């Protein structure tokens, strides 16, 4: 895992940075600090927790990382584009509820629910984006508003339709098995049981990295996040890029929502609140700046990996659960500070 993510910086051709040494180029990458933090955490937990190094355990860590990481892909791109989405956490639940409720209430094949959910969730992302573009209010406010509305809708609609606060189980419906295979199955890799979400996470991260570094859209994303005014002046379609980025988050929320439905068959309507911050934390640990214009999708993936390691490492180390949140906060702080120090050093050196 750590080797895989270390690969791309060296593999990058150097036409844009022809004068700097390979070492400088490596140090200039936004994800380097996070990578060092990840290595340090990995070593730390390998020492303090016997069970941490077992292949099965590592697969669990990767699963935890992937459930955050899939969302962190969309969230990191949006942050590079200079915006936040506070509705991302409950949007996952909304998306899952839409699929489960439509499939059950209309007795459809679950794949129909999956498709309806995709359309509606992308529309939600578009609403966030269009509201932002039209009003120019901070995305923080817009998505805070949609966060509350979605949380209310999740509960209100679910209760109105089912009479309870959770969706009905879709486990015995047509299409469940195939949908589960896509969104929530296990894959056997050399005798180790790995969740399919891990592969999707890596795939999404790869696609986002390609998009950022190899396409014109990627340049636009950096441009609108760094200096929207200048970007507009040179002809970048700023509004379209921002709406697209909100829809990117929505797509990731849809995927995560489908994982919820097909891994657990019923969806609790009150879930998801608070997760939006965890996604932002993953992106920030991975080197995305809160001010936009800087960051990487690989960084966000490493951030999610750090988060997964901390989250599960505490369980493997069998520490007193009363201290859980303290450990979590301390780990995050250390990882972020390492990240910061590395970047400052790079920026200061000639």
């Amino acid at each position, binding site marked *: 895992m750590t080797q895989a993510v270390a690969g791309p910086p060296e593999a990058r051709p150097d036409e844009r940075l022809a004068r700097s040494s390979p070492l400088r180029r490596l140090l200039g990458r936004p994800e380097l600090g996070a990578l060092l933090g990840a290595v340090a955490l990995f070593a730390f937990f390998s020492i303090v927790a016997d069970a941490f190094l077992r292949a099965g355990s590592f697969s669990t860590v990767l699963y935890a990382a992937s459930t955050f990481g899939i969302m962190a892909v969309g969230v990191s791109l949006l942050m590079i584009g200079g915006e936040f989405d506070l509705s991302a956490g409950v949007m996952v639940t909304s998306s899952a509820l839409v699929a489960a409720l439509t499939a059950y209430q*209309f007795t459809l094949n679950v794949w129909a629910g999956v498709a309806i959910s995709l359309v509606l969730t992308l529309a939600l992302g578009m609403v966030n984006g269009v509201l932002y573009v039209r009003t120019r209010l901070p995305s923080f406010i817009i998505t805070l508003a949609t966060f509350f509305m979605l949380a209310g809708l999740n509960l209100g609609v679910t209760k109105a339709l089912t009479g309870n606060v959770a969706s009905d189980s879709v486990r015995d419906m047509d299409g469940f098995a195939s949908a589960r295979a896509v969104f929530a199955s296990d894959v056997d890799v050399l005798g180790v049981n790995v969740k399919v979400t891990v592969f999707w996470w890596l795939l999404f991260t790869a696609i986002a990295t390609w998009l950022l570094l190899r396409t014109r859209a990627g340049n636009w994303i950096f441009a609108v996040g760094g200096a929207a005014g200048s970007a507009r002046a040179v002809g970048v379609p700023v509004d379209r890029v921002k709406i697209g980025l909100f829809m990117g988050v929505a797509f990731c929320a849809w995927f995560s929502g489908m994982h919820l439905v097909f891994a657990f068959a019923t969806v609790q309507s009150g*879930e998801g609140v608070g997760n939006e911050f965890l996604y932002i934390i993953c992106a920030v640990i991975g080197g995305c700046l809160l001010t936009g214009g800087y960051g990487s999708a690989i960084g966000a993936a490493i951030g999610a990996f750090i988060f997964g390691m901390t989250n599960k490492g505490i369980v493997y180390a069998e520490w007193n659960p009363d201290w859980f949140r303290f450990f979590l906060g301390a780990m995050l702080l250390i990882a972020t500070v390492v990240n910061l120090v590395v970047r400052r050093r790079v920026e200061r050196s000639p």
Partner: protein
Amino acid sequence: MRGVFARGTSRGLAVLAAAGLLALSACSSSGGKKSEDTPEGAGPRLKIAMVTHSGAGDTFWDIVQKGAKAAAAKDNVEFLYSADPDGGKQAQLVQAALDKKVDGIIVTLAKPDAMKDVLARAAAAKVPVVTINSGAEESAKLGAVAHFGQDESIAGEAAGTELAKIGAKKALCVVHEQGNVGLEDRCAGAKKTFGGDLQNLFVQGTNMPEVKSSLTAKLQADKGIDGILTLGAPFAATAVDAVKETGSKAEIGTFDLNKDLIASIKSGAIAFAVDQQPYLQGYGAVDELWLLKNNGNVLGGGRPVLTGPAIVTEQNAGQLEAFANRGTR
């Protein structure tokens, strides 16, 4: 599969029809013509407010409300519900209910200190108060006439006994909300009667994949675990998955019920559930306020009335299935 599907259609229609009926009955319970014709023996129409510390979308509190509404419909009571997990805001909601001149207040005492002043104001205004769920010890001190709830320690002890009965030696107590005193009491109670080794595991209850991966991690870290006690129904289902995946031999017990859980108990995937009968807490509290007003009665004679623990196992799960399916058990 086909058969299930065909039945699914009629079930969908039934759900729609039921929702329609529910909507109708919900309309008629507040105001309108019905409020004029008092049902036989129901006494004058009362207005009762329930203010709990529930977060949004919690199955448990949904069942409490269903119980309260059933009693309200029977007793010709106008029932108002509001909730806030923050102690200060919950107190404000109680104040708002007092401002509305209600005839009785039902309140939870998850944070008794925050409720002290507003309950004193209720006493000054001669509005009777009934406490439910949490705060059995503080209830009388704060001037409530009655308390309906489960003693969490006693419920925990019952769970510990059940865990021991299924032969577990080393078990987990899965806490899904950190810092919740009631949940800690359950684990402490279970520890007392269990006899074996019982450790607490904290999971983030609002994030099911996190619950699952934490359980999986714990089962991988400690292969000796042969019992899991979850403190809410949805977490038990996730524990079943985690046990299956890790090849663990752990047996699962849980607090609270829902319809999926009944099916899991019937199939043997979950060994037992400790039910504190939330329906009874809502129903009892409304009934108590009605009885007090119309006949001066106090259920339990001023002592806390225990609504649990009721133990559900493979033996009696079948009898409760219909009730769990409609979300009242």
